[in-house]
């Protein structure tokens, strides 16, 4: 009965109600959207590396090492000499070790020199390994394997030639030694998608004719000669390490951190990620706080319209009362109307969120490499929606109590 009344009453003021609903819907969509991006970013970061026990690089900060070695953000302060790399590789605790050499680029993508072991050992998203979408791994010296996004953005497929540029933002190309794309990797949702992978030796090979950051004019060693050369690298940027047993992780980490010949740093990826998240966490809390305030603002807006509608509805309320409606009924009617508006807003907000996600998902993925999954609302999100409806009921209590008190006298008295 009250429900029917409430619905009819809302329908009668459709325009005002629609505006209020829209305000709530937008604020709810914003809040849920921020939450979605936040959890999506966190999951995507956490999923980038798994199965690696230690990351080894030059001594800097654990977050920095994680960022440049795994996320290709920023640069290494120093390289790790090949001697140190071999020393670490020879330690009994080490089950496997994968060197990483960064520094060159192809268009906007980083080129990473590594070994075959990278394809076997690199794991993401709780232990998934890399799969080839087409082609195969590194065979020849001048073979390259590209990530899914490199292939998609630049329209590459197997057997296409690819020229690596020297440095990260440079106009000098290693065009005397073009690579051949040997394989394209499946999409992983990790920075590997945006990486061109070549062998460690190839990185050395293309720099044979280079001295002091520039090519020696007129000199270009033919590819055949390069194949016959000793292309042991002088240094690597970082290394991913797997230990024999978790029990040895700390001992190995300490040994590397105290390695006397060279200042090295070994970090536990999980712990470094947590540190990174502690830094980013402040910003995300602020963002979440702001969007929560937007929801509160929308609800207060609803309270304001309710207050002003009380004035219009003086007579209506009085007539209800005259017809025998108890003051409580009036209160219930107003609260119910507010709850319906809030629920409508929350539902619409959820709809907006999914519509937005559908549009934004490919764009966000392309621009930031951030995959926002479109899945049914999680329990947490449903709680948020419920909280919005409950908050709607609470803010409507104030005008409702006012109506409860005044409904009879206010409407019956003739005011001049």
């Amino acid at each position, binding site marked *: 009965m009250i429900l029917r009344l409430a619905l009819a009453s809302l329908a009668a003021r459709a325009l005002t109600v629609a505006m209020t609903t829209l305000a709530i819907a937008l604020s709810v969509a914003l809040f849920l959207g921020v939450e979605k991006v936040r959890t999506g970013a966190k999951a995507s970061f956490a999923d980038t590396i798994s199965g690696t026990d230690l990351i080894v690089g030059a001594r800097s900060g654990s977050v920095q090492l994680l960022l440049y070695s795994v996320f290709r953000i920023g640069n290494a302060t120093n390289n790790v000499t090949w001697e140190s790399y071999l020393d670490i590789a020879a330690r009994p605790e080490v089950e496997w070790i994968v060197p990483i050499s960064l520094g060159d680029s192809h268009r906007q993508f980083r080129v990473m020199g590594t070994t075959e072991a990278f394809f076997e050992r690199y794991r993401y998203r709780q232990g998934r390994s890399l799969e080839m979408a087409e082609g195969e791994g590194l065979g020849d010296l001048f073979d390259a394997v590209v990530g899914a996004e490199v292939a998609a953005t630049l329209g590459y497929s197997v057997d296409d030639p690819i020229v690596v540029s020297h440095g990260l933002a440079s106009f000098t190309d290693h065009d005397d030694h073009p690579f051949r794309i040997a394989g394209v990797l499946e999409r992983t949702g990790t920075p590997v998608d945006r990486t061109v992978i070549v062998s460690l030796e190839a990185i050395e090979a293309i720099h044979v004719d280079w001295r002091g950051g520039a090519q020696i004019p007129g000199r270009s060693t033919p590819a055949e000669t390069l194949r016959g050369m000793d292309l042991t690298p002088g240094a690597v940027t970082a290394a991913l390490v797997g230990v024999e047993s978790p029990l040895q*992780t700390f001992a190995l980490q300490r040994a590397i951190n105290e390695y*006397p010949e060279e200042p090295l740093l070994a970090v536990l990826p999980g712990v470094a990620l947590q540190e990174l998240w502690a830094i980013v966490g402040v910003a995300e809390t602020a963002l979440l706080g702001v969007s929560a305030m937007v929801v509160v603002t929308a609800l207060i807006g609803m309270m304001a319209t309710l207050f002003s509608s009380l004035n219009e509805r003086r007579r209506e309320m009085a007539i209800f009362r005259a017809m025998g409606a108890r003051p409580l009924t009036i209160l219930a009617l107003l609260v119910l109307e507010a709850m319906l508006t809030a629920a409508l807003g929350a539902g619409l907000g959820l709809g907006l969120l999914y519509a937005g996600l559908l549009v934004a998902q490919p764009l966000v993925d392309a621009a930031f490499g951030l995959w926002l999954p479109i899945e049914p609302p999680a329990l947490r999100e449903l709680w948020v929606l419920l909280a919005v409806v409950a908050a709607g009921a609470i803010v409507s209590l104030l005008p409702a109590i006012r109506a409860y008190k005044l409904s009879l006298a206010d409407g019956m008295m003739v005011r001049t």
Partner: protein
Amino acid sequence: MKSTLALTAAAALLATTALAEDTRQLDAHEHGTGALDIAIDGTTVAMELRVPGADIVGFEHAAESDEDRAAIAEALTTLSTPTDLFGLSDAAGCTVEAATADLETEGAEDHDHDHGDHTEEHGHDDHGHDDHGHEDHAEEAEGATHSEFHAEYTHDCTAPEELGTITFAYFDLFEGAQELEVQVVTGDGAQAFEVTRDAPTLDLGGLF
């Protein structure tokens, strides 16, 4: 040189000392904060504790008086009894397999070994991290000295996944200890925790 490094931690320390002329590095050292590393593999739960001397006995200079020596000896005894320090849940069914504790002095050590003028039968061959011999150099070492208690425990647990919450009576036993930075490594990865005097529990529930 390289072959020396592959040896044990003690040997590595010795090597560092031998190289004192060209290698200068010291570990970070923060009073009030200790580090506890926990590694879990199968049924083995290994713990390694490193705490500044100031947290445990209240001083870090070489033991000068009998009281100092007694305090250190008592601390080492306490630190060798992990069951008194950390409360592992009964459900995990853990038994202590091994527990060792020693005191390492950093900074003063270079002096000692370089000069090599402290006498005694127990001097050079064991290059100890104990409190021996340092009193000879108390004056020159003071200020530069930091000492660190180091303990290792190995537990064998029938059900490590039942570890759940670990309680830290450690903070009741050592007045100077304020905080432990805990790192836990399992086959699935690593995680960091912070256990403080005000919140002396560690919840490992999320790990399994």
